[in-house]
């Protein structure tokens, strides 16, 4: 009897393994995508951790494994790791340039299946399927509630060997045979693997809170949750993870309270009027508008503040999460008292239409709003699940009828944010309208490559940025990020794109045109 202990794509396994790659560095994203494709994996890329989480939530069963960078501006890679572990229970592989033991340790503690060092080699990526396989096997064990047998251990060991390829058919058959032996437990074993969805986790957390964190036990939670088909084992393992997570948070919180002065650091430095928190911390192309002799000129208006808002957001989250595990309401209120300035700002602009930087804004907003709502929901998932979901990811008209009013001569003078906005919204048009004129004018690298890199996404795939109304001085960094985000498809699309590449390349060497590329032929790199 066939048992579904892996998804039905077993035959194709590990080819077609569905990987989600999260990395803020676009260069790396591209390289990793390419490498993973070469491994015959199905790749989705993402430049923002938050967006990655959203994607995972929306397309719950559509991914097998997540590969994520550790250093990301909008969310710590370890946090993402924990979220994924708790909510989706997918294997996560961390990557970093930094191979320090303490970091690696942290990764493992947070539940990473593996920790790769950049530059990542193809070999290492090729083997990531083993983590998926191993996890599936563990889950089968969990559901059946059985001890490991020698056969299992042997199989797991085999799956763990680095340089080995697929398990042989023999091994697989052996596994199936073993599974078939459990005649009596057929009904239990046929249960599908439990996916801890956001809702399910919410139910779980509210049950925990209701019982009281100290008195909690899997049986009690199970009874309270009253979810058909959920077993005690499922709850038990989830509880364990949850406990670990909370204890880690508490430890972090204690650290921060003890005197890292993070609160002090971030609050005063926030420029009051700037909607920094609402925007993506990653200021992507929001650089100078002045012509430059090359790199290194000053960006007059924009400040790249990659770290600050992140941490601030983290702090908020930490507060909320911590309080959710204790008698909440009083604590919540007291905590919100300590972050007055942060509270006010983000909660003002709530409507997505006004402030399109929902990726940056909404989670923060939500966390601020928690006290007003049912506090039981103000746990770690409150940030994401309670969000009014704007229709960001449905396809909006890809090209908005924005008149690029600026004369070519004014391209340089236009505020960077505005320019970003224009370019962000009309990716295709930007190749035609903006770029051709822009290239003649811009001696620097800025405009030319900017347009290239932002024209990566196909028009239909643009996320929320489509909905952006033009006029305000918006910081569209997150939307820019998102453009590069869902690159599910091969990027080799528009001829226009290459044309602009060609023209831009001559601008590489600021003014002193060393090389003239009349047309970079396809054959050039063949």
């Amino acid at each position, binding site marked *: 009897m066939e048992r579904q202990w892996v998804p039905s794509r077993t035959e194709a396994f590990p080819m077609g393994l569905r990987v989600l790659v999260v990395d803020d560095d676009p260069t790396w994203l591209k390289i990793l995508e390419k490498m993973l494709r070469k491994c015959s994996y199905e790749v989705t890329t993402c430049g923002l951790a938050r967006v990655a989480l959203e994607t995972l939530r929306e397309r719950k069963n559509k991914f097998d494994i997540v590969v994520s960078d550790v250093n990301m501006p909008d969310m710590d890679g370890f946090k993402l790791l924990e979220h994924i572990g708790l909510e989706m229970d997918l294997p996560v592989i961390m990557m970093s340039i930094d191979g320090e033991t303490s970091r690696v340790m942290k990764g493992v503690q947070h539940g990473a299946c593996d920790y790769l060092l950049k530059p990542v080699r193809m070999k290492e990526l090729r083997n990531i399927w083993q983590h998926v396989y191993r996890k599936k096997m563990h889950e089968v064990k969990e559901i059946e509630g059985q001890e490991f047998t020698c056969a299992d251990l042997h199989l797991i060991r085999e799956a763990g060997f680095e340089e080995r390829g697929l398990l042989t058919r023999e091994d697989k058959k052996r596994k199936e045979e073993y599974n078939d032996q459990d005649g009596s437990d057929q009904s239990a074993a046929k249960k599908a693997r439990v996916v801890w969805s956001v809702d399910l986790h919410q139910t779980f957390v509210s049950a925990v809170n209701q019982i009281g964190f100290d008195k909690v036990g899997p049986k009690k939670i199970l009874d309270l949750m009253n979810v058909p088909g959920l077993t005690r084992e499922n709850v038990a393992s989830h509880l364990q993870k949850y406990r670990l997570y909370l204890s880690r948070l508490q430890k972090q919180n204690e650290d921060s309270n003890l005197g890292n002065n993070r609160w002090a650091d971030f609050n005063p430095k926030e420029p009051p009027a700037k909607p920094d928190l609402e925007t993506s911390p990653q200021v992507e192309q929001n650089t100078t508008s002045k012509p430059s002799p090359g790199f290194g000129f000053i960006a007059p208006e924009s*400040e790249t503040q990659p770290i600050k808002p992140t941490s601030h957001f983290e702090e908020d989250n930490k507060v909320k999460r911590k309080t959710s595990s204790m008698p909440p309401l009083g604590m919540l209120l007291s905590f919100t008292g300590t972050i007055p300035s942060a509270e006010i700002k983000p909660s003002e602009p709530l409507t997505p239409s006004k402030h399109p930087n929902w990726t940056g804004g909404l989670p923060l907003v939500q966390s601020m709003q928690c006290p007003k709502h049912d506090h039981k929901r103000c746990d770690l998932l409150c940030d994401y699940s309670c969000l009014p979901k704007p229709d960001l990811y449905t396809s909006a008209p890809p090209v908005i009828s924005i008149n690029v009013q600026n004369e070519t001569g004014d391209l340089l003078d236009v505020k960077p944010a505005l320019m970003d906005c224009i370019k962000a919204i009309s990716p295709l048009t930007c190749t035609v309208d903006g770029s051709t004129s822009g290239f003649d004018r811009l001696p620097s690298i800025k405009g030319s490559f900017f347009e290239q890199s932002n024209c990566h996404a196909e028009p239909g795939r643009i996320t929320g940025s489509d909905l952006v109304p033009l006029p305000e001085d918006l910081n569209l960094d997150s939307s820019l990020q998102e453009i590069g985000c869902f690159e599910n498809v091969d990027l080799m699309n528009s001829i226009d794109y290459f044309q602009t590449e060609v023209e831009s390349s001559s601008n590489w060497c600021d003014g002193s045109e060393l090389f003239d590329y009349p047309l970079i032929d396809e054959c050039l*790199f063949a």
Partner: protein
Amino acid sequence: MDVSMLQRTYLELLSSLFSEFTTLQKLQDKDDPKFVFRTVSLFFDNAERLINGISSNLNQPTVEFNKIKELVHQLKGSNKFIGGERIEDACVAFRSYCDANDLQGCFSSMQQLNQEFLNFKSKLDTLFTMEQQIVAAGGSIPKMQ
């Protein structure tokens, strides 16, 4: 120009880059002949943004070395694959100046970083041109082993 001469020079130039650069080249194939070019463009784009960020941070009335350090770290990470070894060294030096809160050192590092980037870029430009020339002369682009 003699094709084999071109090819030899090309290989020499290539070998002066990080070995990872050739890995990058290996990722390129017939289906995606512009992969290297696009990735490199992306890299320079990103690098420019980071450098601008560093620059603006350096010119603040109160310099936040941690921020700069973070940006330099990102730059270094981005560079890992594309392969400017001298850029990497410049980044490392920069970081130590940041750690020491040495503003002067940072500024000079900044200069150096700029310079290294320009050098690197022109190197890559040469590389890409040579590829074009080789192909135009009827040869095939040699690959590093």
